[in-house]
């Protein structure tokens, strides 16, 4: 007897199959994560339970989860747009930082002179523009010179992080921060109100949910969304159809980067109230959001749910660091493994694998 494996191309994947594959990918991912825990001599069930209870099991956990979901939803839905057009924006991290920098500039310079209702929208606008312009460079480089966006967006992450560090240790270093490399704290008019007893800056949350709905409509019912999908699915057909690849790509990246920029505004104006180390402003939201977008199947509305899910893992990951003494990198491993399995799941959507036993003569 011999096991025979055959792989056939699958033509259509039914919705129920898609859900099944998604669940199995998550389960297989969690199983593998469990093995990692087991290898560190931690009971995997306990660890997974701690992650879950740490994030969704208490009021504090839920509040923290929502707080961390805000940037993930904003960036994730923006990335969903970019990935639809097959533009691999790996630079959301830097677009977030540029948004934070621009908002800080407005907050510090205009905050003392203008009231909240004017300064807050101005900060969001500046943050959006900051992220958008930073994302525009790789878009232009790609459409004008064919430079691979994976490399350019990834490298710009370092540039933005160093630029930010330069600002906080140099010209923008706060006089009231006792030598710490922070900017001065924002005036009250330039900080976002919080939900009572939590760190949830609900203004940003509302913007995020609203933006997800807008992006959903943009993708599915506008000319622009149609053109993006044609570009993403078949660039040759887009050319044939006279769709302007340059214009569409640049506009798309302005939006995608702008969404990350808004997330940056939320972090500095809602949480820190000053500009601080890049690592403190974003604990890898720009990267985690890639998985958020992927788990949401590039659907901006589904990104709300998957954003909450991964925020939960971040919060739960913090919890097991403390309670089980696992290293901080555990969460990265966790996320990496889940993404890996989610992408593998796509293989089963596109192909059928048939196992059969064959008698050897």
């Amino acid at each position, binding site marked *: 007897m011999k096991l025979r494996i*055959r792989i*056939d*191309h*699958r*033509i*259509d994947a039914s919705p129920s199959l898609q859900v099944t594959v998604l669940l199995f990918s998550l389960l297989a991912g969690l199983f593998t994560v469990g093995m990692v825990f087991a290898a560190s001599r931690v009971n995997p069930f306990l660890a997974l339970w701690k992650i879950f209870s740490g994030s969704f099991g208490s009021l504090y956990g839920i509040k923290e989860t929502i707080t961390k979901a805000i940037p993930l939803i904003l960036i994730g839905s923006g990335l969903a747009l970019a990935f639809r057009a097959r533009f691999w924006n790996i630079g959301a991290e830097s677009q977030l930082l540029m948004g934070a920098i621009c908002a800080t500039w407005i907050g510090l310079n205009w905050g003392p002179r203008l009231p909240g209702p004017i300064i807050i929208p101005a900060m969001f606008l500046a943050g959006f523009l900051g992220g958008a312009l930073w994302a525009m460079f790789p878009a232009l480089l790609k459409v004008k010179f064919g430079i691979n966006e994976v490399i350019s967006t990834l490298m710009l992450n370092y540039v933005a992080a160093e630029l930010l560090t330069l600002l906080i240790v140099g010209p923008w270093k706060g006089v009231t921060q006792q030598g710490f490399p922070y900017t001065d704290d924002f005036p009250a008019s330039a900080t976002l109100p919080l939900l009572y007893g939590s760190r949830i800056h609900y203004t940003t949350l509302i913007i995020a949910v609203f933006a997800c709905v807008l992006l959903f409509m943009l993708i599915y*019912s*506008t*000319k*622009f969304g*149609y*053109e993006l*999908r*044609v570009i993403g*699915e*078949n660039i*040759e*057909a887009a*050319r*044939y*159809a*006279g*769709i*302007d690849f340059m214009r569409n790509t640049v506009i798309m990246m302005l939006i995608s980067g702008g969404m990350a920029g808004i997330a940056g505004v939320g972090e500095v104006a809602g949480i820190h109230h000053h500009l601080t180390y890049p690592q403190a402003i974003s604990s890898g939201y720009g990267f985690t959001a890639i998985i958020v977008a992927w788990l949401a199947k590039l659907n901006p509305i589904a990104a709300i749910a998957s954003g909450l899910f991964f925020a939960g893992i971040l919060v739960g990951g913090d919890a097991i660091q403390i309670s089980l003494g696992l290293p901080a990198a555990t969460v990265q491993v966790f996320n990496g493994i889940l993404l890996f399995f989610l992408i593998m799941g796509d293989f089963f959507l596109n192909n*059928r694998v048939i196992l059969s036993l064959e008698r050897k003569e």
Partner: protein
Amino acid sequence: MKKIEKLEMVEISKYFHTTRANYKVSFSIESGEILGLLGENGAGKTTLMNILYSLIQSDEGEIRINGETVRLHSPKDAIQRGIGMVHQHFMLIQNHTVAENIALGFEEAPFFFPAGHVAKKIEEFSRIYGLKVNTQEKIWQLSAGEQQRVEIVKALIRGVDLLILDEPTSVLTPQESKELFSILRRMAGNGHSIIFISHKLEEILSICDRVLVLRRGEIVGASSVQSTDKRKLARMMVGRDIIFDFEKEHIERGPLILEVKELIVPGDRTERAVKGVSFKVYKNEIFGIAGVSGNGQRELIEVITGLRRASGGSILINGKDITNASARLVSDQGISHVPEERIKFGIVPNLFIYENTVLKRHHNKRFSKMLFLNYQTIKSHAESIVKDFQVTAPSINTPIKNLSGGNIQKLILGREITGEPTLLVAAHPTYGLDVGATEYIRRQLLERRGKGIAVLLISEDLEEIFELCDRIAVMFEGEIMGILPTQEANIEDIGLMMAGSRK
């Protein structure tokens, strides 16, 4: 290993998803025989041969060599057992020389300087079979016919006894085909077996000893070529009588629509793929451009439809200069385009049928309001195309990739025609389609000519060119070798022009 005296495929079945690609196919071939495998596109010819070459595995059935059952797991096994295949699309590395390509993966070649060792052997084979190849030339410098010869040598040098040729003449001029046939006859004379896949009846009749006809994956007929004829084969292939001659009514051509003047177009690698081409296309006329692919036709079409920029000359539509206008502007000027490689260019496979019916025209007022698309009108537009052009589809809410090639092409043609264009540019519109769809598409083109569209038809299929066109131009190496009214043209002259002689 012992030479293949007799090869049998027994009760071979293969299923893809729910479709039956092959069903209980059995046949045998003996050494020195040339066996024709005839069938429409999609009849399962290539699948069957891919099973024999072990590119794919059958679900049922077995292969016997000299009466003994063999199990082949990969093309490597197949080659070792003496079975070789030359695919429709050559598997050669463009930037390597002929010798390097042949040495690649050849087990007898030494580790160091494999190409030099192989070169001697190649020349030996070339002599025996009359296969002219220059071992030092790079593949990209060769014509399609020469590349095909390289593929044949590649198989011979590996000691192949049985050679499968998949639609070998589709890339050749009529003269090159004749050369290929004489090579094949010599090989058969030397005891090789050859399986010749084709959907062209004349070829099968002129080269093969026996012919098998496949329809919907099953063998529907087998006969020696002496005891059959074109009409019988065609009936077996299609399952009904087909009409070989269209009645093309005579129509006086109308006013000038398209004028191309001294057009020069750069290619992907070359400075000039089109070298100063001029011609005119009139209303109520089908103007055909014949020629072997790769002689500048693609570049010419791309320039006319706004997908490539010309470096010289001009294009006028209804007297208006549209040289180097964008694709959208060209389309808005009433130029429709049925592109070659329909799946690659003409559709977006993962989008729904209705979304595909407005490709190019989604920005028209009819289908959009401000920023938004009007999905209601788009869907009714799609419904009417599906109905008017006899597209077989489960519903317009299906991804278009689920349709067959013929139905995709009907949909593309429908989309391009319903815009009421003044000029229709059709590139290889029936390439790879079955006889039924081909007939339908050709009728549509003739009908539109009657209704006042000017048609620019680019095709390699001379039968199609002669059937449909009012005037025929032949392209060779970026130039037009001559333009003839169809009544004054004969197939030999066109063939010679395709190979570069001027008229």
